[in-house]
């Protein structure tokens, strides 16, 4: 393998080539060929990423930035187009290209009947390209390029079925919400630039640690908070999370790839990347933890009464992202990354499983019309079950290990946060089991036509499901607690990228972990029985009253935003347009003209046509001039 990391530009290059081929010839390209090009491009990237990953693992590796060309240079202000390959980015490379590849394969089947399939693969490749830029960049500008680029792809893919205005509205909402975050990110970048005169990670972090830096702590906090605002937008945290559930308008594989596994974790990546900064900004770190916790709780409550299969998963994603931020907020960076990884496995799995269900149901997404699909879709059912178990934290699944670690870290940090987070984790199990029961157990509630068409999905769909299910099961073993005979592989690996790990493994934690383990098993059992009783039913209407209705309507957050921001904004714009612009400023401008015209109309009357009068006026004028000259001009 040798110096594969020197060729890191090949990793984003292939998706870019795939995008260019598919994007330029999308009209003439046969569908299958487009799919193959898309998949192969990602596969090659994945293989190279794997090689890079292995190379980075070796202790002899140095993570020097690899400069491709000058991007912006203006005197001292220099931003190269450079890539950074280290433990963190190589791990993300694997997640992105690996899961990306599976989802591409899945899409070849899922999107096969869509006329825009080639275009779809072009977008998907473009997304992978930007996502790779995001994680590979050796400075914040390259990250920002990827950051906005993935937002663009998300916008394009959410609104992929552009004939439906609701879908394009959702895309627009996602883009604009992201832009709000991006503004925060941009301000953060400019603050860094202003205070440290660099945006390169290496130089920036070196300057942070150098004793000469005379920047006050409040500046660190401000920078960290601004960057976190960017993360709020991209990773769908309170208060900028509302776009993510709406983003489910896009094709399901897109939801799996972009809105669950990769793009939304960009915020976590960014904070982990900037851990040196956040360590110096305790206030910002507290904010991250708090926002993460609130998001985890709020989204979990919202997920409880959703009837759209993808919406449940979307709120679950928001909630899990909250967990990840909570982990970061308490300083457990590697744990956050770990949860990103495991979440990528099981959430992609769940989404793809949901896609398989939707596929089988002929586009139906309402879980009140499903039920009892277990027998008709056995592979989907089993893989989905594994996903549900993993996200609920069933012992020894990947989700258990990572969430366990998060809870442990939070417990060390703040007891109150721990209880709230544990409550959110319980809610997670509840809504996920509810989903499972409603979809796969009980009796079928759809139309006969749908029942007739129910079938297991083809291999291109089930293959990724099975692979992801395996990873969801065993993915946690890279970081299994010592108590269960595990080893901190991930922590050690990430230490190569100077990311501090959360390691507290002693007798007292072992005790706590045992308690947690026991509680989890018991809790899950109760939840399983409870939800089975409540939701594995023949009839389910899905109408809620009282407080449940508030939850089903997502605490009316969208409506509140609409009433407090969107409408006033529109009203103000209208006032500006109709009143300030037309009557005000233009009125003044036209008023000047009108005054002159009016004055001219009046003065015109002096032009009586009587020559004598003219002479008279002339004489009068001369007399006045002379008189004036007497008194003033001497």
């Amino acid at each position, binding site marked *: 393998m040798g110096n594969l990391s020197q060729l890191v530009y090949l990793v984003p290059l292939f998706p870019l080539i795939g995008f260019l081929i598919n994007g330029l010839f999308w009209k003439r390209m046969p569908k299958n060929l487009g799919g193959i090009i898309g998949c192969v491009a990602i596969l090659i990237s994945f293989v190279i990423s794997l090689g890079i990953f292995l190379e980075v693992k070796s202790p002899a590796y140095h993570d020097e930035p690899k400069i491709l060309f000058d991007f912006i240079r203006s005197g001292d202000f220099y931003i190269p187009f450079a890539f950074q390959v280290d433990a963190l980015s190589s791990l993300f490379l694997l997640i992105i290209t690996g899961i990306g590849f599976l989802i591409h394969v899945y899409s070849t089947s899922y999107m096969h009947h869509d006329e825009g399939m080639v275009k779809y693969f072009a977008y998907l490749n473009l997304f992978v390209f930007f996502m790779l830029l995001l994680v590979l960049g050796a400075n914040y500008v390259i990250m920002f390029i990827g950051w906005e680029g993935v937002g663009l792809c998300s916008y394009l893919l959410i609104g992929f079925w552009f004939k439906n205005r609701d879908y394009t509205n959702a895309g627009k909402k996602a883009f604009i919400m992201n832009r709000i975050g991006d503004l925060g990110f941009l301000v953060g970048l400019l603050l860094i630039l202003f205070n440290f005169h660099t945006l390169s990670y290496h130089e920036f972090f070196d300057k942070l640690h150098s004793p000469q830096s005379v920047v006050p702590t409040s500046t660190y906090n401000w920078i960290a908070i601004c960057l976190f605002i960017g993360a709020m937008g991209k990773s769908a945290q309170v208060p900028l999370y509302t776009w993510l559930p709406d983003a489910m308008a896009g094709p399901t594989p897109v939801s799996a790839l972009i809105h669950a596994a990769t793009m939304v974790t960009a915020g976590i990546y960014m904070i982990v990347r900037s851990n040196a900064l956040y360590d110096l900004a305790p206030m910002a770190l507290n904010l991250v933890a708090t926002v993460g916790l609130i998001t985890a709780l709020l989204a979990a409550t919202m997920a409880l009464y959703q009837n759209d299969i993808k919406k449940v998963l979307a709120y679950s994603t928001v909630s899990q992202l909250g967990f990840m931020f909570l982990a970061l907020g308490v300083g457990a960076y590697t744990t956050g990354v770990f949860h990103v990884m495991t979440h990528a496995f099981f959430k992609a799995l769940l989404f793809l499983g949901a896609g398989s269900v939707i596929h089988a149901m002929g586009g139906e997404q309402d879980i009140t019309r499903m039920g009892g699909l277990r027998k008709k879709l056995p592979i989907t059912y089993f893989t989905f079950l594994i996903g549900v178990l993993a996200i609920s934290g069933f012992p020894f699944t990947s989700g258990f290990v990572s969430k366990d670690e998060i809870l442990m870290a939070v417990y060390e940090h703040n007891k109150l946060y721990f209880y709230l987070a544990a409550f959110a984790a319980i809610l997670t199990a509840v809504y996920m089991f509810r989903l499972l029961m409603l979809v796969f157990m009980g009796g079928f509630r759809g139309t006969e036509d749908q029942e007739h068409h129910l079938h297991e999905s083809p291999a291109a769909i089930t293959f990724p499901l099975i692979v992801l299910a395996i990873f969801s099961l065993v993915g946690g073993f890279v970081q299994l607690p010592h108590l269960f005979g595990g080893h901190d592989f991930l922590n050690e690996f990430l230490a190569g990228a100077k990311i501090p790990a959360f390691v507290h493994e002693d007798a007292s934690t072992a005790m706590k972990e045992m308690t947690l383990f026991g509680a989890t098993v018991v809790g899950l059992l109760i939840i399983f029985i409870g939800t089975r009783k409540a939701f594995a039913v023949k009839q389910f209407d899905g109408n809620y009253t009282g407080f449940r209705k508030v939850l089903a309507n997502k605490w009316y957050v969208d409506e509140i935003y609409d009433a407090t921001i969107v409408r006033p904004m529109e009203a103000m714009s209208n006032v500006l347009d109709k009143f300030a612009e037309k009557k005000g400023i233009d009125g003044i401008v036209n008023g000047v003209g009108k005054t002159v015209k009016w004055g001219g109309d009046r003065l015109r009357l002096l032009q009586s046509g009587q020559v*004598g009068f003219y002479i*008279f006026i002339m*004489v*009068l004028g*001369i*007399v006045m001039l*002379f*008189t004036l*000259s*007497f008194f003033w001009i001497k």
Partner: protein
Amino acid sequence: MDIYDILFWILSAFAVGCALGVILSRNPVNSVMFLIGTFFAISGHYILMNAQFLAIVNIIVYAGAIMVLFLFVIMLMNLNADVEPQKGQLVQLAGVISGGVLFLVILASIKTAKTESIDKTSTDIGLIADLGKVLFTRYVLPFEISSVLFLSAMIGAVVIGKKEETKSVSKEDESEMKQFL
């Protein structure tokens, strides 16, 4: 009070008197006659200042040609009778007052002007030879251009004065005109 001064006062009095006659006499023909008188007085002044060429030209061109033209027109239109409609008393008063005020104001402003005495010995500058020299050297271009001006004025006068043959004043125009009469 030498002869120059005496002549100045006499000529001045004559000029002003004739000028008043121009504006006060009812009959246009008398006005013309008074104006010719004024011009003669001014020519007298010119001679007094030894501007002989201008004095002659003034008499020939103004008193001779131009005023004859006026007279000719007046005769042609049969305006010699005292038929001119008079302006209202008020307007006339306003005219007199404004003219008077103008006079007074300018008078007041030039009253303090530096007084230059006049060299009463005869000088050569007004002689035709000297003027000719200047005219045909420095001012030869304006001089030639003035000939073009004359030509154009002549053509203009002919064109304007020509009786329109085909287009006569329409009935409407005529009635409209009559309203003012």
